[in-house]
């Protein structure tokens, strides 16, 4: 009898350990893969007018019948600035569509009305809306210049006596930020240097630039234009630190870090570099800094911007705009 009971007990124990009905599914929903596409709720947004400068953000909502690749394209009616937000989901919500006022393609947005367009991969449906920017996004950080206020007389500039020299602030619609940028162009067939513009800390009312971060969380950002059909330009930035806080930079005993940028693209491009990644260069080769050897953006005494080009390659031209140091992350204009 004991053996029969043992058999029965074993059977009960074994059969009791079975899976309950599982309401989850493996993989994506079949409806999302093979279902028919349709818009369940149309494009909507949390604000009709948004003040990015005040910290407001905009987001968009919509509901589709299946998971699909979608793209929101926001186009400034005045500036032509474009922001693209892409995703793959069956709904648009705050988590996936929040817009902080930044741009994808230059220029940056201004005070303007923007067209909003929602499109879907492989489908002809297009949903539209508009949103008004009351104030564009502010970018926290130390702005060296956006060239909107003209030439600062405390900057130092030098222009070689070459041909077709054109070093000046220009105001036109193609500016990536605001209306103005700094143009640098010319032909110098005896020297690499075409011209320079030095931004001394004194131009901002102190002996060191008002940057609070350290080298690892400070980013140097600049918008640079590459002239179509011309890849001659080399932009050289020199960052001179007042290591001993004397108020004066001494080249023999203090650090200079250099960023050499061959401008070999066409159109406007944002370049962001972590300050601690900027090397010390002597004649273009890595070298040992003369000062404390530490990246100290808070001791920056002067930033030099030199427009260089190989003398045998002829005319060189570039434009720069919106030179800014940011903290903790690269600039998101």
């Amino acid at each position, binding site marked *: 009898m004991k053996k029969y009971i043992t058999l029965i007990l074993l059977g009960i124990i074994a*059969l009791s350990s079975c899976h309950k009905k599982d309401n989850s599914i493996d*993989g994506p929903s079949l409806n999302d893969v093979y279902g028919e596409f349709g818009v369940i709720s149309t494009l909507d947004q949390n604000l009709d007018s948004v003040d990015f400068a005040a910290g407001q953000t905009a987001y968009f909502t919509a509901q589709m019948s299946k998971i699909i690749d979608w793209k929101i394209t926001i186009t400034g009616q005045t500036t032509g600035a474009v922001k693209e937000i892409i995703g793959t989901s069956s709904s648009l919500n705050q988590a996936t569509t929040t817009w902080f006022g930044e741009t994808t393609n230059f220029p940056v947005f201004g005070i303007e009305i923007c067209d909003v367009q929602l499109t879907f991969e492989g489908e002809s449906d297009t949903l539209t809306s508009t949103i008004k920017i009351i104030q564009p996004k502010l970018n926290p950080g130390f702005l060296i210049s956006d060239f909107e206020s003209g030439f600062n007389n405390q900057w130092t500039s030098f222009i070689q006596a070459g041909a077709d020299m054109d070093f000046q602030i220009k105001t036109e619609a193609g500016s990536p930020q605001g209306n103005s940028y700094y143009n640098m162009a010319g032909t110098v067939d005896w020297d690499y240097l075409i011209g320079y513009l030095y931004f001394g800390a004194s131009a901002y009312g102190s002996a060191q630039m008002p940057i609070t971060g350290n080298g690892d969380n400070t980013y140097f950002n600049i918008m640079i234009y590459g002239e179509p059909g011309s890849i001659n330009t080399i932009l050289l930035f020199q960052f001179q630190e007042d290591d001993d806080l004397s108020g004066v930079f001494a080249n023999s005993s203090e650090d200079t870090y250099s960023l050499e940028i061959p401008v070999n693209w066409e159109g406007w491009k944002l370049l962001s570099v972590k300050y601690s990644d900027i090397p010390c260069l002597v004649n273009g080769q890595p070298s040992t800094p003369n000062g404390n050897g530490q990246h100290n953006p808070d001791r920056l005494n002067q930033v030099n911007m030199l427009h260089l080009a190989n003398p045998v390659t002829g005319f060189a031209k570039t434009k720069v705009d919106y030179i800014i140091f940011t903290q903790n992350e690269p600039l998101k204009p």
Partner: protein
Amino acid sequence: MKSLLTILSFSIAVFTFAQDGKKVQFVGGARAVMSNMDFQTDEIDTVTPGKSAGGYALIDLGFRINPNEQTEILGMIRIKNDLGGFWGSNVAFDVRQLYVRGVAGKIVRYQLGNIDYKMTPYTFYNHNPDMLLSGVGTLQIKEDILNYESFYSRKNTWRQQGAAIDFGLAFPKIIKDVKFNSFIIRLNPSNLSNIFERFYGGGNMVVSQSNYFTFGLNHASIFDLKATAASDNPYKNAVSTITFEAKLDKDKWIVGLAGETGTSAAGYAQDSTQLTDFFSNTKAYLKLKELNLKVSAGYLDNGADFRSAGAQSKRINYNQLNTFYSRYTNSQIDRQISMYDLYNDPTLYSSSISEGIMDYNPAINNALPYGTASFNRKGIYGEVQYQDTSEKITLEAKYYQLSEIRGQGTTKLRKYNFLQTTAQVDLMKIFNMRRHMDIEAGLSYQRTSRPSEIEFEGVSLKSASVSIGAQYELVSKLFLMANVYHFESSGNDLTPIRNTNDEIISFAPFSARNYENYYAAGLKFNFTDDMYLSAFYESNLNNGNGLTPYAMNQFMIVYNLKF
């Protein structure tokens, strides 16, 4: 204690080598195959050769060395020469087998090198789930060749490289005996960069409490050896199970309960999604001794996330192209792996343990694509085994009625019906004939369904295989062989597409409208039980899934010898 020590070596007392006193023996086999293939398709095909002839001769020459009664060393090399490849060309030399085994201290059996190993159906087991039906005659010849070539012994073992030890203890009271088995296998070497040294190891302890009750603790685990790669994300797949069997053995019948239950965990150390699940498989059986009839019924419940690489690896990876007539027609379309290829091409088979989920062919085996250890299945099953006392008739039938536990892409679950039967009839014994005459017939039928009003959600797939093989001894040792095999599949399903982490990322429509017919006839002369010469002609018609039918007709001469 003394009584215990005296019986320590109960399991290995009879385990000695070189019983005949020879210290060195030659073992191995030889085979010569000649074939002439005729390939035809109804489609316009001016690209694919219509005929191909080939063959090879090989010898597997092994040296079995017994330096003493407790040690055996086997080294086997293969010399293979493709037909027409004399004078040094197309000659291959290979090491086919290498191991050392023996008994240490008259207690522990060990084997190093190549090992053929298995544990339990849910830990380490070669389920061979794609070869649904076996048969006598020409199919048996072909199946024997591909099993030999892929190191499959029909005992559900995996051929691996590593080490294994086992020993046993016997007790005078309470427990009858305890057997310990363990193994370690190297799955892949490190590349000294980002790939770890990967091993597969485990073992079990089987306790026989008495003639009535046995249970075992089993564990198998794939693991990466830390610090062998510049990565801190090693992989692990651990499976722990309990096996048990309780039975009552009476004069006329035996009734019992047997099963296995356990858990698994799989994934990379730093991945947030570690797959863990459990399974349970229990069956009750009744054996009527006088009738030699065994009937069993069971219930299996394999969790959707149950992963056991050693039990879920397949011999055939369907994510590969045919190596023989891989493309045809002027469009050079892929020729899908067919049932005929499963019998014809040993190069399709692998003996590797796959950590990832291998692709399968729903038309061939959708119900249990990874054998009994297939994950995401639950349901009942029954088995009947019968053999009359004089072994004239042997019957075996299995039936599974299963369903998924977790839906794929939907909460609706697929349901599976799977029937598999074989019958072997010895007509010589039945009709008291002078010559041998054997017939073996088999049927395998599967149906998968997921009814739905939504078109893309519905699944309905049926497949059936029927095999009949016969051999008749015309004159002494000369057999006439004939075989017929029919396979057909129709319907639709959605097969999962998985990423490198085995997560389902999408589904691919699977549509089956295919059938295959195989006919073969030939002669076989058995020189001895281990040596034969055979010549046969076979014809395989494949409708190319209703799109691009083709036929493969082949004449083969096979000489086989084992020594």
